[in-house]
């Protein structure tokens, strides 16, 4: 069943992303929830069901491992609340599940809260500790998220004969956009020299080419278009929401893996374009928030999402086509590079950004003539991707 035109987003909220040492997991959820509720103009009793997006509950001792982690801080008891986790695609998958509930008539108002608390421990003690301490004892041991994506950049450079420059340009572009976003973790621009000369994290990715480790929360409230119209809300329509899983935990053992892109993104894109009725993504999508956990990821995302041809991704950024003034602005919010990546919150933050842009409320980072936006969330690394296409109702 297609979700097209069956779901409307009526409220969004987002905390500042960053090292929120003075806020705990519950505090951030309360803050983004409050902003979304005020935006939607509904009461807590109106919420029929909720979805909690937290990718790795163990990073915040155990919070987020059940729907009760949402019920307790928000005092939303007596209704179904589902905890969703799907690696870095967690946030968007939670929105997708909530959308299905609304589209099917199972819920009138659904709430999605994405939240991740990563900085109650040192930066290495969250994700790096996770790959060291969990996973198979020996098979695949030694891989980290930056490393797995870095392997694509090594292959991309060897195959297409480019150097690190276009990837560094992704970081420069997104940090520049992020400096216009008051909620971004890193609000300062960076120069290309700084990016290229920053300490190596996983060759060939440097520190400034990796999303920072961040805390944050983002929320969304959805309902049917009919209800949204009757409430006279400034609502945004869902045109498509997709999810595709195309690799297990071991894409590095797959001889068919070219290490030049991700099937999950390609397939999620195809599914979403079909659902939305989009035939030419480059022409029909006005702007996009794509998963730029690392600079290489954004470059292959352009190709995987059909914004450009295979092998031309590096040119797409190098020639300025994806800049805020370009023909298809990508990551006007500053993306994960600048916003940071509290994992479960990211997909929901992308929805927040799309809605804000489509409403014309994005201030200094406003994309001109924003009518159709795409959000892409990728996890795995590379095994699961989700695409959402949102548009103004007019």
């Amino acid at each position, binding site marked *: 069943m297609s979700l097209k035109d069956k779901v409307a987003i009526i409220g969004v909220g987002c905390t500042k992303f960053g090292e929120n040492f003075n806020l705990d997991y519950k505090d951030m959820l309360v803050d983004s929830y409050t902003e979304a509720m005020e935006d939607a103009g509904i009461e807590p009793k109106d919420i029929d069901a909720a979805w909690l997006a937290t990718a790795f509950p163990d990073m915040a001792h155990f919070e987020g491992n059940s729907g009760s982690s949402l019920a307790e801080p928000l005092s939303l008891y007596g209704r179904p609340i589902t905890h969703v986790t799907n690696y870095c695609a967690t946030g968007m998958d939670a929105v997708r599940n909530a959308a299905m509930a609304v589209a099917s008539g199972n819920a009138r108002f659904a709430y999605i809260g994405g939240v991740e608390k990563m900085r109650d421990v040192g930066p290495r003690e969250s994700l790096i500790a996770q790959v060291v301490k969990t996973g198979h004892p020996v098979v695949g041991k030694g891989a980290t998220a930056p490393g797995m994506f870095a392997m694509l950049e090594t292959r991309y450079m060897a195959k297409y004969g480019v150097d690190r420059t276009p990837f560094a340009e992704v970081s420069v572009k997104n940090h520049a956009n992020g400096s216009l976003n008051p909620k971004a973790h890193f609000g300062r621009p960076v120069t290309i020299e700084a990016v290229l000369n920053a300490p190596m*994290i996983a060759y060939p990715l440097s520190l400034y080419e990796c999303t920072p480790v961040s805390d944050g929360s983002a929320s969304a409230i959805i309902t049917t278009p009919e209800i949204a119209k009757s409430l006279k809300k400034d609502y945004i329509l869902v045109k498509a929401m997709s999810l595709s899983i195309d690799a297990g935990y071991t894409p590095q053992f797959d001889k068919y893996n070219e290490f030049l892109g991700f099937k999950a993104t390609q397939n999620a894109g195809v599914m979403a374009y079909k659902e939305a009725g989009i035939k030419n993504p480059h022409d029909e999508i006005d702007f996009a928030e794509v998963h730029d956990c690392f600079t290489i990821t954004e470059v292959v995302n352009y190709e995987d999402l059909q914004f450009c041809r295979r092998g031309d991704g590096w040119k797409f950024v190098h020639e300025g086509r994806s800049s805020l003034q370009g023909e298809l602005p990508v990551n006007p919010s500053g993306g994960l590079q600048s916003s940071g990546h509290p994992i479960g919150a990211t997909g929901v933050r992308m929805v927040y950004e799309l809605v804000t842009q489509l409403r014309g409320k994005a201030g200094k980072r406003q994309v001109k003539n924003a009518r159709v936006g795409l959000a892409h969330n990728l996890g795995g690394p590379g095994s699961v991707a989700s695409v959402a296409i949102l548009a103004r109702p007019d």
Partner: protein
Amino acid sequence: MIGISKYGVYLPVKRLKIEEMDRAAGGPGRGKGEKAVASFDEDSLTMGVNALYESGILDEGSLDALFFASTTAPYLEKSAAALIAETLPFAPPNFTVDFSSTLRAASNALILAQNFQESGGSKIALTAADIRLADVYSAEERAIGDGAAALVLTSGADSLAVLKYATSTSQEILDTWRKNTDQLLKMTEPHFRFKYGFTDVVTRAFTQFLKQSGMGVGDIQHVAINAPNVKLFLGTLKQINLEPAPLTLRLYQEIGHTGVSFGLLNFLAELESAKVGENILWLDYSDGANALLFRKTQEIEQPQMGKAISEKIYLNSYNDFLRLRNLVVSEAAPMEPFTSAVMNFREKRQNYALMAQRCKNCGEVTYPHNRICRKCNAKDNFEYLPISREGTIFTFTKEYLYPSPEGVAVTASADMDSGLRLFLQVTDSDYDKIEVGQRVRRTFRKLHDAGGFHNYFWKFRVIGEK
């Protein structure tokens, strides 16, 4: 009569210069030569496996026994030989034995292999390895090194060399020792231990050998001895007017005394240098001495010793050596990986023998193992085959955040010659020069010590350009 049908030499690639050791101790940089240093991810068991792999044992298809000799086996209780047997791509032999406690353990094992063969067991693998430590900055530390060697022993027909005669003499003495609670070598003063521990007993063993075999000094063209140092080695040889082969001398000068494997390495160096028909006497001392007389019966098509000695990567400093041997104190909280003895047991074929699975329905070859074929969805319909030793790098990265004693953890996905893609960490390579398209070979290593036991797996070494 027992004969050597195959042999393998495994020397760690890292080297530490003796002059660097002298400088670290506050000296002016005196001292010639260098020693071989095992990497942080090696132990005697992994080196024993790698020596076996160098021998060509993968082509054998079966074994009747596997003997492992070491004074530094990674477990005091738990057989290393049983584990080593599981790294081979065929059913493990019924008889696995661990030899230890004396530097002549490898020749002890050989003598007993002969007895075992006479009672019916026809094919025996023997692998010997040691990584020993002496006090930091000591003289003894400069004379010892790390290394391994292996033999495949068969009935004598079509051998490279046959064992003609063996004698043994036992002697109780405290010359060098390590208690089960000691990490470092202990020893008495040199004049006593060299005279009684080595020279006298070796002379006695040699004399006894001549008497019992009826051979004369003139019948022996080569002598290999695991002497404590090069001076004693050359002095002993001089008494019977023999010179060592250049490769043998290089073992002393560039590798160091590699414990249990040293006598065997000396023997193999002399064997490679000998002519067909010549006799090689192997004198293996410690707690007495063994004398083994081999005759070379075939040319060696592919010698290994020169390449193994010459292939090297220098450590930058003595400091690096201390880090590799885990002698640097740190109170940083370690991150311990999840592990499970049950998983180790269940996954031996996948993890130790590194077998791939081939779907009998569609022929697709994959690793790691799944029950449902990814290509045709056939369930539980696989056969198992070994993954080739070598492959070509498809892509790689160098991780600076993943904890590693080297400060960087390099990983690579390589297309293996046998036709699948394998992802492993990379070790013992020039990380600054790593490139897509380089050739790699898999090497058995220890990944970590989580769970209170050793967790072994495979890594890649870069072996050359495409």
